[in-house]
């Protein structure tokens, strides 16, 4: 069933009144597809800022979303309304149009603002624990589990119950 059954000329009342199960399905599908129309809310609100070529614009947005706005510090330059962020967005787009790779654009920013400008910092001495903690946690946890299991296996079997204990057990369980 085509999705245009929800065209605007149909009054919205009848839309819900005419809910048969097959229509319900396509309506849900329509709602679901609507989700994909929702683009991320970026600060690039001015169409003049955007590159006409959607492929290059998409790349510029990917690069910009990895660069920190240094004024607000917890936003990417794509999300920020600060003047500096707008200027940096412009530079990113100019470089993308000029044929620079993502790495080259990011390197240009790092040369000026240091690694702090990257929202995803590189792996280096000061970020060792940032990246290594999950692996270290898994390793240490795995080692602890293995060690504990080995101890449990290697531990000598408990001594058999003494006749007194056997009697007490029978008394408690009521069985012989």
């Amino acid at each position, binding site marked *: 069933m085509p999705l245009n059954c929800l065209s605007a000329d149909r009054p919205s009342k009848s839309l819900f009144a005419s809910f048969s199960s097959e229509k319900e399905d396509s309506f849900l599908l329509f709602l679901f597809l609507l989700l994909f129309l929702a683009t991320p809310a970026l600060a690039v609100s001015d169409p003049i800022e955007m590159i006409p070529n959607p492929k290059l614009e998409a790349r510029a947005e990917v690069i910009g979303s990895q660069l920190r706005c240094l004024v607000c*510090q917890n936003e990417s330059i794509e999300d920020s309304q600060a003047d*500096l962020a707008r200027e940096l967005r412009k*530079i990113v787009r100019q470089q993308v149009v000029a044929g620079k790779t993502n790495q080259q654009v990011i390197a240009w920013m*790092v040369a*000026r*603002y240091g690694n702090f400008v990257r929202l995803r910092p590189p792996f280096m001495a000061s970020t060792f624990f940032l990246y290594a903690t999950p692996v270290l946690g898994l390793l240490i946890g795995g080692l602890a589990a293995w060690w504990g299991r080995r101890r449990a296996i290697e531990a000598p079997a408990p001594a058999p119950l003494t006749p007194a204990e056997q009697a007490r057990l029978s008394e408690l369980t009521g069985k012989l």
Partner: protein
Amino acid sequence: MSVTRRHLLALVPLGLAGAAGVAFWRMLDRMKVGKFDPHDIGNPLVGRPVPNFSLPGLGDKPGFDAAALRAAAAKQPLLVNFYASWCIPCAEEADILGSLAAQGVLLWGVAYEEKDTWKKYLEQYGDPYQRLADDRNGRVAIDWGVYGVPETFLIDRAGIVRWHRAGPLTPDAVRDELQPALRAVA
């Protein structure tokens, strides 16, 4: 598991929390005495030569380019101060810049994304700059790694950036950082 070992294990998270607390307390303490600034992101230009640029002058003052800056610094190390008339912390440090200029420190200014108010600002807060460049769109500031105004750079005789501060100069910053840096490059 014996009770004592359980107790010992229970102490591990307590110990970790205690260590984190001590580290946090130390950080706050260092912030209080001005040894640690969480907003200071550093500037990769420190220790490197000034970037290439060329800017026109603002008003009657001549602008400058990297070559003119290097030539002047070769004779006497100088400060490059990025400021703007619309910037309140810039007005806060204006007196300090004035007294530095009066002490014979060479000051070159870069007016960042300046508005029509530039003239009134210099009349009101003084003009300590020997040269004054007009960075109207802020692109040169980006090449210097400037992310706000005011920012101040110290250029040594070799044209290398030796010291940098993002934010207004304060009497403490001048006494504890700038004066030693100036002595080091003199």
